[in-house]
């Protein structure tokens, strides 16, 4: 079977996400679709699977054009997809999940024994180790993924698409997943893997396509390329050199110090003996692919999550056991990545959102009551100072654009005596104007002596703001490099793929 997509175009709300992309997949090969977040990988595959409609371009199977408008169309010609978030019903058995939605022989009273037998046969054939009678509820993530694969095999899919299949797996599970892929390939299935991990591409694929900003920048056989070429193609933008003067810091008393900070979740060290030390006024960028422990790092520093072991020091003082409020009151600020969940009250107005941060501040209280006049004037002043576009301070923050919400969040954090700001994806989802504004504010803040821990998956942002850059991979610190003229994108790319900096030097 040969599926080809030609000249695919797609845009969301007027912004192009796919521009004339070509892609193809053959039986008996593993084709990796590589790119950064937002490069358009998942969008492209969602079009192939019928979840999105393409705006332009054509899809053909064995040379004949096909129309795919929904997943049922895709499945009927043998294309199946395993999503990043599994779509299984916890309370049903494996077998029931696999046949869910199918009208098996004897429907609505299907012959469960025969179905189970067929699942067992398929399971043996592909080395999937799926037990049809088990309930989903008790299965591990790896087992669930195999059930998802079985769902597609049971429907006789010839092409299997995996969206970030290893993101949820532990290292041993990843290896056994690759074994399954090899079996599938041997049986003549075509496999597409959406990923942003170069190391995995190198381990499993036959061909690789790299997308960047909605365009195809590279397509070749794996043996025709190498790690450096792939990371260049993936990150590739002409990254601007540091736009700041090289600054020197006094490292004698670090503003923030992490000593072997470890956060354990589900028996996995999501933050793994992380060491870091940053001077007052310094901006340290933490680069890395999403989901490598960024959330845990940010939350361990501000106290939302407690470290399982190791310690956190703030201006030399051990604050490992201190509460969030203690840390905030001693000069720590936090801009979370997910502002809607972690930072603002969507159904309240701007004044109340300011109060969320300030309601314990004596300045905002008068005789034990909230000082309405002070709140009013402070909100208005922040709106003016940060140029937040809003009809009034009495409007629910829900009705502001993402960029203006984020400006307000930043304004709220900066409106106190800060010594350290943890900025986690501070410009995610913002347009160029708002991004630029926020980045300028961060630079100005650092000039005033505030240290900034900038955690971002946007390498461009890291490079344009940071004094030093560290890379987070599987919860570990891959090393720290100075952000100066000697900075090498290849080195950063290799570190993001899991190579330690000291190993690269050797």
């Amino acid at each position, binding site marked *: 079977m040969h599926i080809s997509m030609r000249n695919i175009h797609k845009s969301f709300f007027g912004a192009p996400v796919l521009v004339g992309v070509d892609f193809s997949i053959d039986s008996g090969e593993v084709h990796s679709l590589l790119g950064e977040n937002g490069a358009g990988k998942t969008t492209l595959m969602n079009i192939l699977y019928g979840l999105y409609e393409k705006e332009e371009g054509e899809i053909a199977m064995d040379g004949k054009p096909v129309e795919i408008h929904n997943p049922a169309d895709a499945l009927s010609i043998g294309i199946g997809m395993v999503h990043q978030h599994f779509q299984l019903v916890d309370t049903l058995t494996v077998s029931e999940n696999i046949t869910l939605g199918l009208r098996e022989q004897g429907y609505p009273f299907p012959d469960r024994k025969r179905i189970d037998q067929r699942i067992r046969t398929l399971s043996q054939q592909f080395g999937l180790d799926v037990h049809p009678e088990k309930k989903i509820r008790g299965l591990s993530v790896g087992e669930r993924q195999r059930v998802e694969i079985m769902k597609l095999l049971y429907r006789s899919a010839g092409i299997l698409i995996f969206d970030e299949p290893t993101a949820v797996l532990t290292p041993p599970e990843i290896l056994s997943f690759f074994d399954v892929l090899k079996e599938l390939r041997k049986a003549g299935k075509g496999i597409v893997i959406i990923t942003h991990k170069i190391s995995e591409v190198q381990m499993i694929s036959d061909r690789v396509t790299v997308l960047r900003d909605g365009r195809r920048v590279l397509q070749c056989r794996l043996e025709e390329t190498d790690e450096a070429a792939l990371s260049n193609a993936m990150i590739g933008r002409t990254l601007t050199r540091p736009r700041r003067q090289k600054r020197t810091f006094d490292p004698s008393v670090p503003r923030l110090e992490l000593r072997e900070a470890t956060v354990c979740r589900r028996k996995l060290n999501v933050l793994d003996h992380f060491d870091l030390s940053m001077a007052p006024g310094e901006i340290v960028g933490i680069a890395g692919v999403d989901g490598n422990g960024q959330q845990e790092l940010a939350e361990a520093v501000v106290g939302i999550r407690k470290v399982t072991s190791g310690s956190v020091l703030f201006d030399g003082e051990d604050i490992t056991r201190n509460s969030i409020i*203690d840390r905030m009151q001693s000069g720590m600020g936090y801009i979370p990545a997910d502002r809607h969940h972690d*930072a603002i009250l969507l159904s309240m107005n701007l004044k109340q959102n300011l109060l969320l941060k300030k309601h314990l501040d004596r300045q905002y209280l008068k005789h034990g009551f909230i000082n309405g006049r002070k709140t009013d004037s402070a909100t208005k002043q922040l709106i003016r100072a940060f140029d937040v576009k809003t009809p009034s301070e009495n409007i629910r923050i829900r009705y502001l654009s993402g960029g203006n919400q984020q400006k307000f969040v930043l304004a709220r954090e900066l409106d106190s005596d800060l010594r350290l700001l943890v900025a986690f994806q501070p410009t995610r989802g913002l347009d160029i104007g708002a991004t630029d504004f926020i980045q300028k504010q961060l630079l100005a803040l650092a000039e005033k002596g505030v240290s900034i821990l900038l955690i971002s998956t946007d390498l461009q942002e890291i490079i344009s703001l940071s004094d030093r850059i560290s890379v987070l991979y599987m919860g570990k610190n891959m090393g720290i490099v100075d952000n100066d003229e000697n900075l090498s994108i290849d080195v950063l790319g290799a570190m993001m793929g899991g190579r330690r900096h000291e190993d690269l030097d050797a």
Partner: protein
Amino acid sequence: MKTWMHKLVHFVWPVVAVFAVTVLLLLLIGVDLAQAFRGFFYGLFGNTFQIGEIFVKSTPLLLAGLGCSIGFHCGFINLGAEGQLYIGALASSVVAIFLGDLPPAILIPLMFAAGFIAGGIWAFIPGIMKAKYGLSEVIMSIMFNYIAIQLIALSIRTWIKDPDYPFPMSSLFAENACLPLLIPHTRLHIGFFMALVFAALVYLFLWKTARGFQIRACGCNPRASFCVGVNVNRNIILSSLLSGGFAGIAGFVEVAGVQHRLIDGLSSNYGYLAIMVALLGNNHPAGVVVTAVLLGALDIGGLAMQRQAGVPTSLTTVILGIIIVVFLLRNHYSTRMKEA
């Protein structure tokens, strides 16, 4: 001009809808419309006693409704006001029966405190279960209603039963333990006045203090509140305590102001109606006051309609149901209008 019309329509159509359905129902059961409405309004404004009755009915609705609204503000869905009311009444009665010799200036505050604390504890248990173990306060608080009601049934048949009387009820309170009347020759006691004061206090607390703000913030977005250092669990527990406490005061007011003894069926579903009072009043104390009085009036009018025109009081319940549906619909559309 256009928005003004919009607002008017927006306000008028629910009233018209409820009225139309009521008339239809009255026609269906075949009563004289004029007589039915005359009965209804006579019941409301016929004489001072009747006017007093409206507020007698409203008082427990108002207090328990305030309680529910505090819980709702913090995301603590307290459906157990009925049970909390009963437990509050039990605690107040026990104080009244066993310490009946104390002067009113001491006894009544004691009864009040007992009702508040007992009702509070009854909601505090589901509150702590939600905060510490993430159990559903909805189920838990409803189940606690049954326990409370049967606990009262048990008590008035055994240890606090009136020995001189064959029926299951506690002995009559001494004069000291009864709330003074506001208007002579009615049943209207100072409880209603107290409830109004509490409504004002709740407003001040929730909207003007830091703690009240925390409670509302936790209801709005517990995760964001947690991330800025607010102790979410403590606020849930506090709001559950206050929520149940107000329902407990409603129980105190019923025994001390109206019945002057503890009986079965002390509450005519006040605890459940309180949920609707909070809902219809938009969880705002002023709204709660208005809806409590309106629902009280509906109940009294319905009773009078039964006496005068033979319309069963079941009609009141039906109308109440329709009001809820219509208002929920209206809220749905008004949110949609705002978001559009």
